[in-house]
């Protein structure tokens, strides 16, 4: 697979700040990846997302070193509006991204910018609302939505544009577990059935472990570890000090490992944990 995002030696210092918000970031995203980014507050996750959609350096002044290529376009040379043809964005603050007063118009806004005919807009709006499960909100006022509803409208607005890449900054921070699950199932569907590359910043590690193909941990503007979920979750020595709690099933396996009862791979999901425990119990029986 070819890379769809290539970041080399990216350092960014916000104007007026002394410490770099991003420090020598190298990243290679392959088409079809589902990448999760996690890290403590102030790690630079949002800043990294803003570098991908071109908001940095086009809107935020500061010192920008290195290069960011998105779908064959240099983000310094191309405006956000041009990059929007390849990358869809969902911001951390859903309130700030609403431009229209009615949900339908909110979705239509981006489609209008693509210069689509009306019937195509109509079709895509219906589709995006259905995918995100908010068809009933179509004619609602955007200012009267709850935080979670706003987040889903923001996701629907982004996916209606049919981007190749979707970058989402804590898209489920205001959703309950059920709503979060729906969003991740949607992302999984987009990723598996439509080939959309997904980059999601998330605090709740259990969802990343369950859905992502790759995990990146950031701290103080750097990528601390990167790899498959299993590889990353195995490094509890690094995750613990950063305050990242592993999913309970992984923690359980870790405790079993510490006591020398288990030596295999880390489980990420409940059914995998079931296998682990069965195996441990079986070995225990054999041992006796």
């Amino acid at each position: 697979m070819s890379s769809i995002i290539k970041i080399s030696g990216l350092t960014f210092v916000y104007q007026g700040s002394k410490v770099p918000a991003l420090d020598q970031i190298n990243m290679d995203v392959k088409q079809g990846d589902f990448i999760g980014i996690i890290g403590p507050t102030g790690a630079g996750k949002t800043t990294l997302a803003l570098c991908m959609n071109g908001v940095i350096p086009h809107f935020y002044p500061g010192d920008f070193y290195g290069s960011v290529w998105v779908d064959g376009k240099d983000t310094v040379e191309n405006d956000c509006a041009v990059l929007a043809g390849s990358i869809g964005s969902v911001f951390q603050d859903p309130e700030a991204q609403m431009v229209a007063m009615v949900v339908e118009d909110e979705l239509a806004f981006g489609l209008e910018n693509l210069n689509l005919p009306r019937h195509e807009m109509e079709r895509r709006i219906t589709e995006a609302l259905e995918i995100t499960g908010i068809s009933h909100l179509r004619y609602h006022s955007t200012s009267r939505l709850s935080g979670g509803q706003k987040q889903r409208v923001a996701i629907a607005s982004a996916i209606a544009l049919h981007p190749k890449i979707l970058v989402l900054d804590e898209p489920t921070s205001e959703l309950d577990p059920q709503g979060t699950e729906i969003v991740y199932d949607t992302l999984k569907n987009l990723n598996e059935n439509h080939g959309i590359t997904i980059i999601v910043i998330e605090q709740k590690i259990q969802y990343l472990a369950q859905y992502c193909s790759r995990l990146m941990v950031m701290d103080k503007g750097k990528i601390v570890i990167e790899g498959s979920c299993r590889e990353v979750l195995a490094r509890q020595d690094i995750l613990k000090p950063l305050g990242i709690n592993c999913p309970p099933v992984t923690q359980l396996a870790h405790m079993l490992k510490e006591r020398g009862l288990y030596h295999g791979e880390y489980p990420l999901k409940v059914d995998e944990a079931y296998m682990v425990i069965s195996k441990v119990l079986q070995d225990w029986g054999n041992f006796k």
Partner: protein
Amino acid sequence: MPALVEYIPKDTLVHRLNPITKILWTLAVLSVCFILQEPLAIFIVLLSNILVAWLSGVLKQVIPAIIGLFIFSLVLILFQIFFVKEGNTLFYVIPFINLGRVTDVGLKFSAVLALRMLATTSTIPILMTTTQMKDIIVVLTEKCRVPFKYSFMLVTALRFIPTFIEEMDQILQAQRSRGYETDTSNPFKKLFIIIPLAIPLLILSVKKAEKMAISMEVRGFGAGPRSYYNRVDMKKTDYAVIALLGTITLAVLIM
């Protein structure tokens, strides 16, 4: 933190007008007020603005801004009225020592100035409460060929001015009750008191506009030609309103 002047979703004739028509209306009011020299005539223009606000169902939101503007214009009168030496003396503020002479010319001059300011700026909150910010930016950029960044600056200023003036009075009163020296008659001193209070408001307003600009651009606004989901063409009512505005402006100019 005070709220910025926001769009009030309603379905009225004024809401349905094309943003261009409404912008032309503010410009027509502006020109008429500068052609007119009689306080009464300008006062009628002001009343017509209030009528428009009432027709749009945004009177409740617009009135506080107009009151703020009114207080501001009173201050404007105070700064002007004593400096006009021409004309017949009407009265003295302190009669026995003949201090604070007010002439008929001075009074009229100040009234025209204050009313003009009131009538021309009171259209802004009406425009902003009846038109979505997105739509104003789209027509300015698409139809009037104003560069994207300037459209945003203009709209930010438009949103900021009425709120600024409305809040100024409240801020000053609050400060006064806490013992700040805001009663000073020295306009420069007054400015120095106001500026630090206004800055948070300005920052809020700019931040909000910036977020909106970012949100519009990452969804492809400004990349090329665009289509419209709901037609924003000029309708018959738009042409009728524009014709009416043109006629009135022309009539005032000739008279």
